[in-house]
């Protein structure tokens, strides 16, 4: 494999990782602060993509629709939190899993009722439709560069929010010890709603940004949700830094696995074996990574709770 190809695959890994980070950041916040397993996170991502598709269709502009879709998804998230999810905080994880799984099913059917069962169109801005030439002669899809840019921007903003603002301080306090934070007079209900709104907005952003390169269809949240959970387990529950590092790790390992393993096996084994072994192994590589990380660091790489 040439150096150019290797560089391009690394860039692909980073891009895929940042894609996952957008989703994992919100998930880890909710899981870390509110100690709630929210399977409906993937549904918010799906709703974000669908809202983006509709708003972009109406306004005719991707960039105008983006902030609107974010706000709309955040509102849906807040509505969900106030009505249903609030009652789950005190319950055990199993109940939360069951309840939010039910939400997934309900969300899928509601989306199907409103938008129909066939996948719908969401195309990116026309200016980012084609590739750009990067130093080294690499042709790279400009939209993917935009995703990398947005992912890094979100990472920086979240870092500033969590470390430099008062809200961020409350979030960190709630993450490391909820009871103590309540005892110290933090209005936990408002904090939770705010955290959930941020998480929902991030889902909306992920859905809107990923819609142009992924299918916008009923059930689109489930596939990416599994990867997001792997990311936060590796990174450590409740830690944005963990979500960032974990996402990059998963993105790189998965991409490099798919790129390099088949080649590696082709040199060792006859083609028939290699073509079966390569894809199967690269598919499970991230789970092997997760198991390995958990073996050495059961709390994840950067656990929020001390």
């Amino acid at each position, binding site marked *: 494999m040439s150096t150019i*190809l290797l560089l391009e695959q690394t860039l692909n*890994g980073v891009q895929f990782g940042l894609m996952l980070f957008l989703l994992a950041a919100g998930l880890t916040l909710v899981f870390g602060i509110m100690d709630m397993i929210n399977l409906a996170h993937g549904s918010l991502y799906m709703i974000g993509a669908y809202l983006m598709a509709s708003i972009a269709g109406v306004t005719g502009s991707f960039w105008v629709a983006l902030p609107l879709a974010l706000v709309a998804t955040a509102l849906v998230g807040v509505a969900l939190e106030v009505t249903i999810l609030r009652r789950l905080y005190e319950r055990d994880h199993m109940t939360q899993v069951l309840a939010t799984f039910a939400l997934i099913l309900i969300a899928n059917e509601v989306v199907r009722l409103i938008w129909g069962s066939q996948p719908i*169109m969401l195309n990116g801005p026309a200016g980012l439709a*084609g590739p750009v030439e990067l130093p080294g002669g690499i042709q790279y899809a400009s939209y993917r560069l935009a995703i990398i840019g947005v992912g890094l921007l979100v990472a920086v903003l979240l870092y500033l929010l969590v470390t430099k603002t008062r809200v961020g301080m409350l979030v960190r306090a709630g993450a490391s010890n909820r009871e103590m934070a309540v005892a110290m007079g933090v209005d936990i209900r408002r904090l939770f709603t705010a955290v959930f709104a941020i998480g929902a907005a991030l889902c909306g952003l992920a859905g809107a940004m990923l819609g142009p*390169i992924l299918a916008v*269809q009923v059930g689109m949240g489930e*596939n990416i949700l599994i990867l997001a959970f792997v990311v936060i387990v590796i990174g450590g529950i409740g830690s944005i830094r963990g979500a960032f590092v974990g996402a990059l790790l998963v993105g790189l390992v998965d991409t490099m696995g798919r790129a390099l393993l088949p080649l590696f096996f082709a040199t060792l084994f006859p083609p028939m074996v290699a*073509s079966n072994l390569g894809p199967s192994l690269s*598919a499970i590589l991230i789970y092997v990574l997760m198991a390995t990380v958990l073996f050495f660091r059961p709390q994840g790489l950067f656990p929020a709770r001390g």
Partner: protein
Amino acid sequence: MKLPMKLRLAAFAAAATVAFAAQAANELKIGFLSTLSGPASALGIEVRDGFNLALKLAGGKLGGLPTEVVIADDQLNPEVGKQLTERLIKRDRVNLMTGIIFSNVMLAVWPTIEESKTFYIAPNSTPTRISGEGCSPYFFSASWPNEGHHEAAGHFAQSKGYKNAYLIAPNYPAGKDALTGFKRSYKGNIVNEMYTKVNQLDYSAELAQIRAAKPDTLYAFLPGGMGINFIKQFVASGLSKDIQLVLPGFSADQDVIRAVGEPMLGLFDTSQWAYDLDNDANRKFVAEFEKTYNRLPTLYAEQGYTTALIIDQAVKAAKGRVEDMKTFRASLMRAPTQVKTPRGDWKAAHNGTPIQDYYVRVVSKDDKGRIVNKKIGTVMNAHTDFWAKDCKLK
């Protein structure tokens, strides 16, 4: 009050006659088992809509008999499909079955259908296991043998003189079958055969490798959401300018076009039908479908529609005797030549699969500016299922 013996026997005989007479169909009950929920439901819904349209145009009667269609949703789950099949056959006592989209469901429910001696007319999935060695007089396909579109694509790539082909499919049995079919008719150089994860989201790694390998054509079997993901990313990467993308018809029809749009223009695909085929049956089908459902039909809709036409013709010819295996099978086998279907002329091979033409289509705009799949040529004439050679039926 105990009836005298003679009266009881007479009553029993009368009841039995009535029951038996009710069996010799004066109405037709069809079990329609399909995938109507979940991400892949678009396909089942298209087939169902095509089928119902033909039924509606025939005044609710197939073969001259008032027809009741019992619809069941297999949710793309073989276990659920099996339970529903048993219910349709044993409780609802359907005379015929149809509707299954996916091969994993088809293979799971086939033993139940075959054992009950119920005829199944396939509007989609026609697995090689049932069309080859495992062929049965109770199985008839009104769609295509599973490898048909892939073989057609291989022929097309061969005929266009593409020297180097790159192949991509998901790593599961249907994916492997698809590429086997393509390789059977494509004689050029296969640069690589790549298997990806089922439901994979991001193809950037694969696209980078494809770019480095520099093939002139790329054949991708990526059904449903996978195909939408791949096509969007393929075009965004700029590869569509240098590499011709060829797909089987089911990855490039109206449902995918509605989800992807302009990036799909210029892509080639193979199909047993095209919306602009020049025959009266097709013109009627497309016009009525658009009027009834407000959208252009896909090849799935044509398959559902043709299935209903075949059933109508066969039941008529057999005079309603669908339980008589020899009579009904003979009528089914003759039906394609006796009724005009939207895809044009075709006939049935001895294993019950169509011998038909396969067309090449290109995604382009029609004069109303809509994105459609136009026929640009015929790539295989009167093509027979490769596995028919293993079928011992006559």
